[in-house]
């Protein structure tokens, strides 16, 4: 497998962690309780930690003195390969938890497979991440139940988030050309195989939460090809601000 394919494959995984970590960081200091604020920040830190491991690996693969920060901050929007789901804004706590839950379930399944990757670095990053993401899934599942089966208002709010965000979940299971190549060499994971388990887990928790999956026929996609929603540009404007305003400096 050529380096460039491997790098693109890693972006497909790592950019999700970066962008979701960035979204969660926005909430620091604004959570519904101090305890919840601290918990959300812990997840952001886990995700950003994973991001750094992936990007440091990409930097090594690239050579020519690239750093994790060049990769995180200096690509143009079309070069970020995260799914649309993770860039969706923090409309309210129901959105935050639902987005997290939809992603966590996928993320855990992915890492459980990725730990068997022939690529030793990816396998090691996955093994470490599994512990963190298991906790994320536990946290977001518990909150889905609390919001879904809490008050009438909370039920309605979180159902609104489910209805709105479900259309972004199908993209999690799409294969890109780089994915296909990575699968062939035993490095990548065939995410199409995860869909059944994913749906089962989602259904199980949502049922407990007295929530329903909306019946939709048309799902959104594009993130994996670098075609993002309008929210992404603003997220990147924040993320990249310093590196763009003050190029080539050390911080």
């Amino acid at each position, binding site marked *: 497998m050529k380096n460039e394919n491997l790098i693109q494959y890693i972006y497909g995984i790592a950019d999700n962690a970066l962008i979701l970590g960035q979204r969660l960081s926005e909430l620091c200091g604004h959570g519904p*309780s101090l*305890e*919840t604020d*601290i*918990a959300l920040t*812990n997840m952001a830190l886990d995700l950003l930690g994973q991001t750094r491991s992936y990007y440091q690996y990409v930097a090594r693969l690239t050579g020519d003195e690239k750093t994790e920060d060049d990769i995180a901050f200096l690509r143009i929007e079309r070069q970020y390969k995260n799914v649309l789901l993770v860039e969706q804004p923090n409309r309210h706590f129901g959105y935050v938890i639902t987005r997290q839950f939809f992603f966590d379930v996928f993320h855990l399944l992915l890492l459980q497979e990725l730990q068997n990757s022939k690529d030793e670095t990816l396998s090691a990053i996955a093994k470490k991440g599994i512990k963190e993401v298991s906790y994320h899934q*536990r*946290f977001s599942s*518990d909150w889905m139940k*609390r919001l879904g089966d809490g008050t009438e208002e909370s039920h309605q709010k979180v159902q609104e988030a489910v209805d709105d965000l479900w259309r972004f979940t199908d993209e999690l299971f799409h294969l890109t050309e780089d994915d296909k190549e990575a699968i062939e060499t035993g490095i990548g994971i065939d995410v199409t195989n995860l869909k059944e388990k994913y749906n089962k887990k989602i259904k199980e928790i949502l049922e407990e939460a007295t929530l329903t999956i909306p019946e939709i026929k048309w799902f959104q996609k594009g993130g994996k090809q670098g075609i993002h929603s309008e929210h992404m540009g603003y997220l990147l404007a924040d993320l990249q601000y310093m590196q763009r305003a003050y190029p080539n400096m050390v911080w």
Partner: protein
Amino acid sequence: MKNNWPLWEVFVRSKNGLEHRHFGSLHAADAEMALENARDVYTRRNEGVSIWVVESKHITASNPENSGELFEPAQDKVYRHPTFYTLPDEVKHM
């Protein structure tokens, strides 16, 4: 002042072999959340291997006003301590 999360006391075992020690308190709606919050709040720096949480209202505490009758009678029972007894200097392993 409606529907506020109750207060919980958090006890953490910092490593196996040691007892759980009172670390502090926090607010949570239920026991599960109290455990998760305790993990996030009190073990961010690797401080623990096991957590207990108990809702504060379930703890019965002795009243300091009674501490005279509760604890002072033990003060002059010096014969309960090994140093009360005199032994010859030569004796070993006792």
